[in-house]
């Protein structure tokens, strides 16, 4: 495997051809904020939180879907990136109805953690307050569209790890939403195996175990890691 040498924040880093900038940064111990990325599942570059600057490229590039190249100079911290990251987070909060105080994921939410890390002390955009419903028709799980950030992590684990293809994204832009099968109540789904992978994958309080109340929703990503490692490395971790 050919090796590529690049710099990230001035630090020389070597990476294998085909690796993404995000992978290379993680290997080098450099943190880039992410939301739609989930280790072990294919990336789609949906959230734009992982944007980085690359010398010679005027656009900002999403680190999770940008491949390393020889001599690449990457910057993960700048005033411009800070501004954009905070703006993306504010738009995510303004787009749906996030009431952390009554959320199952309060204190354990990736979106909330990102807001803290990026210094978001308030949202400068007008909140949209869209009317969204909660689907609690499934025997074990619930889906609250008010808290969904459309990262599609649930869709990707459902398709590519469980292979059930139950979850999907319907519609476009801010009107997009996560659906079950042909947009029917989750509890009516004939394809859902009730494996719970989508619930483990969800970064926010949008998907939850029924019966968990405020701040109670704990996720166990190691359950996903187990299957991903088995598939990719043919190793059973216990």
């Amino acid at each position, binding site marked *: 495997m050919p090796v590529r040498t690049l710099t990230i924040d001035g630090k020389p880093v070597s990476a294998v051809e085909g690796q993404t900038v995000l992978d290379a940064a993680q290997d080098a111990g450099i943190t880039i904020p992410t939301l739609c990325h989930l280790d072990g599942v294919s990336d789609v570059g949906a959230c734009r939180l992982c944007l980085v600057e690359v010398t010679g490229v005027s656009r900002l590039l999403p680190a999770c879907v940008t491949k390393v190249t020889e001599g690449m100079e990457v910057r993960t911290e700048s005033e411009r990136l800070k501004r954009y990251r905070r703006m993306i987070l504010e738009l995510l909060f303004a787009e749906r109805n996030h009431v*952390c*105080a009554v959320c199952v994921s*309060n204190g354990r939410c990736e979106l909330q953690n990102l807001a803290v890390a990026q210094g978001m002390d308030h949202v400068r955009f007008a909140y949209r307050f869209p009317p969204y419903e909660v689907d609690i028709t499934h025997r074990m799980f619930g889906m609250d569209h008010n808290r969904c950030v459309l990262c599609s992590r649930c869709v990707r684990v459902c398709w590519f790890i469980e292979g059930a293809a139950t979850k999907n994204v319907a519609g476009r832009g801010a009107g997009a939403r996560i659906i079950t099968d042909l947009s029917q109540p989750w509890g009516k789904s004939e394809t859902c195996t009730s494996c719970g992978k989508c619930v483990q994958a969800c970064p926010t309080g949008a998907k939850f175990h029924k019966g968990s109340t405020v701040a109670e929703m704990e996720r166990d990503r190691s359950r996903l890691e187990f299957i991903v490692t088995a598939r990719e490395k043919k190793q059973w971790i216990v």
Partner: protein
Amino acid sequence: MDRLTFATVWLGGCSGCHMSFLDLDEWLVDLADMVEVVYSPIVDRKEYPENVAVCLIEGAVANEDNLEQVKLIRARTRLLVSFGDCAVTGNVTAMRNPLRTAEPVLQRAYLDTANLRPRIPQARGIVPPLLDQVLPVHEVVPVDSFLPGCPPPADRIRTLLQDVIAGKGSLLSGENIRFG
């Protein structure tokens, strides 16, 4: 040194932020040496005074009275602080916003669930009419500083007040800006 004039206001919130303020316990005694409390739900004064140095606003802007008050407070205050999630985001107070108007909420509270003479209270000048949309304070008037949390823990309130009193600025960071 003159003590800073200090006020706290309670708009559309549950008073939990003020309860958390009282959780400052003995530090309130120190605070009393550093500020002069000129207006607050725990002070007997009817009108919001002029020339207030620092004001903590609890709650969102939910009714016509809140709307009028918040403009007056802004005009008379140097450093305005959105105190708690309802002031900062609308939070629980704004959970009715997706219904678009105040009507369904009043209907549910005063008609559907009442069994004794169901009636929506109407008394101009006494019961302020609800706004159709609840707003975070900064969507109505400019806000200088944000103190999130539902409620903000007492030590978070103290951190902000200590910084303000010491002239070290009024912006929180790190865990001190976590919502919820």
